[in-house]
């Protein structure tokens, strides 16, 4: 079976999974669809691996499926990389969904829409023409929108989240469509191959317009500031497997879009494009990590952390483009490698975190950190997996997050002082942004683990939590294993990344990274020995443990009450909460976060010296949402109210409108004629 057949069969299998979701009886519905979906993932995955191994794109064309334009499939190595990325999240998310089913995925709608969503995710990177791409893209947007609503569609928050998501994603899609149309109109064909040929010779203004439109359009899907507003709203409402897919895979497809347009189709551009990408990335990374550090809901925290990670990937992408524009091809491809590695790692890590958060939500009934606590004792495996994934996203060695950050740092380090003013100024600031983001990510995830999983349980739900079914643990475990393996032996992922990069940036011929156990940058001075590092850490940990045991005279521990300064009745309420944990960060970055604080002191009626109650209200809502979107919403609403005046209910008036319109059209025709 050749790769093209695999792609088509996979697509059919995925759609079949959707039909199975409708057709099968309630009991076997989710499982049946899941099995078919795994088949689809496997087939697409094999095709992608084949493309990456040979380095040749698979091209298919059929004029029968879609009317007028036909379907065009082009699986390039770049696309294949993203197909693998999607499959990596999709398989565990589906597995997790089986256990999670009674929390919103068991209904007939959900069981039908979920497989179609996954299939559209798998197929978007295989699209070879504008029409195919947009159909798949819209399918992905619509199905994900339905899935956001499927869990708690009756709740006001869910409906609000869905409408934010719908507006931003459709606005983005419109911009993407315009970008495609401009590009297609100027290159005389709607297939990507034709565009790739012509796009390089277009007028700079047209190229710039296309790039900016695509950047905003795909950026809104990727959750880049200021289009990130839907993420922290939609993720807490969506069922966890859906969150994992949206945050791990769908957001990565936004980055795919930017790479596709900017690098593969337009073939790079002037410095200002990439400075814009870099700035967008830096702002997103900082804003996202800052909000992640001050969020108190674990899913909201993870959503902001997605904005943060996409920001880092765009930082790398912007640096890469900048280096390409200033003629440093080796650095440019290193930056692009960093982009893809960051996205792949993010997919695995964020998938694991969202799935684990879903398990926690299922076990405790809450995703509010201030209602969790003590879960590592009650859900030891889920807790440990969440801990490792949190360490990975923080970028701690020897896990995969570290590899991406190291590559990004190395590309920036070697790109400093290349003699170009833009790079010379941008690179140190990018390093600073990377560093602060990394630091704030530590705050966010120490908080998530420390408040959510350690200490005493803060609510009855957390106290009575029990470990989730084995399939759910297995799903998280698979992704965490990927994090560990890619962190210890990055040579397993880097060749694929490099192959994908080489097709996207045709200027690079030779190998970029020397493999073996170490990661060595060819042409630059930089070596990383992750395997040895991991080995040394393991040996050291065991050694120190043995040493501690052998030096101790009384090695068995006596269990005691926690030291509370002699106080009796140590309760969970005496612990630090997520809010208090984030308070120092919130105070330092007061000007950016702009928390809404409200102190209300009630006095006793008899005397104002005696205080009856003090209430303190502290909320960190999104300053961009408040400052940028609320005014727009207000204006739109006012326009809507004004438009209501046109609807008095009188039939005569409506007929009058019709006549008026007809007269205007005819008058216009007369004038043109």
């Amino acid at each position, binding site marked *: 079976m050749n790769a093209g057949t695999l792609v088509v069969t996979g697509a059919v299998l995925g759609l079949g999974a959707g039909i199975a979701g409708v057709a099968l009886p309630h009991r076997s519905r989710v499982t049946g669809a899941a099995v078919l979906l795994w088949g689809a993932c496997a087939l697409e995955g094999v095709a992608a691996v084949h493309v990456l191994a040979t380095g040749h794109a698979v091209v298919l064309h059929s004029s029968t499926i879609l009317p007028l334009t036909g379907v065009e499939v082009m699986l390039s190595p770049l696309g294949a990389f993203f197909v693998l990325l999607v499959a990596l999240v999709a398989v565990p998310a589906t597995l997790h969904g089986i256990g999670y089913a009674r929390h919103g995925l068991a209904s007939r709608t959900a069981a039908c829409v979920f497989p179609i969503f996954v299939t559209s995710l798998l197929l978007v990177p295989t699209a070879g023409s504008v029409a195919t791409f947009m159909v798949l893209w819209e399918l992905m947007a619509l199905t994900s929108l339905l899935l956001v609503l499927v869990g708690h569609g009756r709740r006001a928050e869910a409906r609000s989240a869905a409408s934010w998501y719908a507006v931003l994603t459709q606005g983005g899609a419109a911009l993407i469509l315009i970008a495609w149309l401009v590009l297609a109109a100027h290159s005389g064909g709607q297939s990507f191959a034709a565009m790739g040929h012509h796009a390089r010779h277009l007028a700079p203004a047209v190229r710039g317009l296309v790039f900016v439109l695509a950047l905003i359009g795909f950026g809104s899907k990727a959750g880049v500031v200021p289009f990130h507003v839907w993420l922290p709203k939609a993720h807490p409402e969506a069922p966890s497997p859906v969150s994992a897919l949206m945050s791990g895979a769908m957001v990565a497809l936004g980055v795919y879009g930017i790479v596709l347009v900017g690098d593969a189709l337009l073939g790079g551009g002037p410095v200002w494009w990439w400075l814009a990408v870099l700035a967008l990335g830096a702002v997103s990374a900082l804003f996202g990590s800052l909000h992640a550090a001050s969020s108190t809901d674990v899913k909201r925290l993870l959503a902001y952390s997605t904005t943060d990670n996409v920001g880092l990937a765009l930082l790398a992408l912007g640096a890469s483009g900048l280096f390409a524009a200033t003629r440093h091809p080796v650095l440019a491809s290193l930056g692009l490698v960093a982009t893809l590695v960051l996205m792949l790692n993010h997919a695995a890590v964020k998938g694991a975190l969202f799935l684990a958060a879903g398990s926690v939500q299922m076990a405790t009934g809450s995703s509010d950190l201030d209602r969790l*606590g*003590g879960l*590592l004792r009650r859900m030891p495996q889920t807790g440990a997996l969440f*801990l490792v994934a949190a*360490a990975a996203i*923080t*970028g701690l*060695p020897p896990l995969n997050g570290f590899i991406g*950050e*190291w590559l990004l740092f*190395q590309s920036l*380090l070697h790109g400093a*002082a290349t003699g170009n003013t833009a790079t010379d100024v941008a690179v*140190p600031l990018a*390093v*600073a942004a*990377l*560093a*602060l983001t990394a*630091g704030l990510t*530590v*705050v966010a995830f*120490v*908080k998530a*683990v*420390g408040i959510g999983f*350690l*200490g*005493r349980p803060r609510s009855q739900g957390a106290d009575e939590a029990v470990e989730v079914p084995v399939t759910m643990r297995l799903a998280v475990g698979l992704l965490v294993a990927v994090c560990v393996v890619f962190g210890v032996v990055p040579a397993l992922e880097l060749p694929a990344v490099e192959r994908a990069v080489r097709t996207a940036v045709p200027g690079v011929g030779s190998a970029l990274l020397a493999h073996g156990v170490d990661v060595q940058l060819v042409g630059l*001075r*930089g*070596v990383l*020995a992750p395997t*040895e*590092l991991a080995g*040394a*850490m393991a040996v*050291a*940990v065991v*050694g*120190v443990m043995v040493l*501690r045991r052998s*030096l*101790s*005279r*009384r*090695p068995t*521990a*006596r269990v*005691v*009450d*926690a030291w*509370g300064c002699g106080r009796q009745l*140590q309760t969970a309420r005496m612990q*630090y909460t997520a809010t*208090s*944990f984030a*308070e*120092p960060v919130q105070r*330092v970055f007061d000007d950016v976060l702009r928390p809404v604080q409200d102190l209300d002191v009630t006095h006793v009626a008899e005397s104002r010296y005696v205080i009856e109650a003090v209430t303190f209200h502290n909320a960190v809502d999104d300053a961009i949402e408040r400052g940028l979107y609320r005014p727009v919403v207000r204006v739109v609403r006012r326009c809507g109210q004004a438009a209501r005046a046109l609807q008095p209910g009188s039939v005569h008036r409506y007929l009058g409108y019709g006549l008026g319109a007809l007269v205007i059209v005819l008058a216009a025709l007369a004038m043109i004629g």
Partner: protein
Amino acid sequence: MVGAGISSAVQVAVVAVGGPVLLGVMRKVRCRLEGRVGAPVLQPLVDIRKLFRKERLRPDQATWIFALAPVVLVSTVAVAAAVTPLVTTHPAFGAGSDLFVLVYLLLVGSTILALAGMDAGTAFGGMGSSRAVTIGALAEPALLVSILALSATAHSSNLAAIVRATLAGPGSVATPQRLFALGSLLIVIVAESGRLPVDNPATHLELTMVHEAMVLEYAGPDLAVVTVGEAMRLTLLLGIFVNLVAPWGVATTTHAADIAVGVASLAAKVALLGVALSVFEVSTAKVRLFRIPELLAGAFVLALLGVVSGLVVK
């Protein structure tokens, strides 16, 4: 390779034993400046021996993180000490002694310690962790930008390469770029190792604690391991700093005599810096918690000035 392994082992041993002694020296200097005799220089070693003889305590809510954290702290510092060019420019895995890697390796230890602070479910533990990670986050930009400035001469963030480049070209020692970056790095080191004016390691008042608050629950052997880990970390950071400032004395081969000279010069340089730091500590007061961002922002700007003056002077 064998020589490299031995010199790495020597480095770990020097840091492990030297760490507590450095603490003793710094306390002694402080006491002398206060007009008192003070504890013997080797007192921290005596304290650690005693702690190993005491019983272990485990808070009832604590998980395996509580027991694991001190071990991880010491292990990461030990690995960092093994690969860093402290005594010799050719330690084992010296190719991997990237400054970025070292920063993250040490971050592993501080992160798990912050988690351990919250493990027992007390009020002060969470407070200490929150403050420690906040300070760490704010120190990070200064740290990485100063690494960027320091890597410029060697075109690599590999510490061994930087030290070798400085040894080869002493003319580059007193450039504004390096001086700014080193100034920034020193502030960061003081902040990260919980010394005055950022944190007072001798405080008894819980509400002013940063670092101590995280380890309030540790007793006996666990406390001993934490103490050793923190002393090692301080020594390692100061060792890296002195070798960036003045790498002379570091062995460039793996001969026994050269390594002995390397150990002696490292001890002398670190002790000198330790004495200077404790003299500074006596003459200063702890800054308020919310003034620390000013200090670290200053460090950040120093690092940026380093980068700019590198671009300008070149």
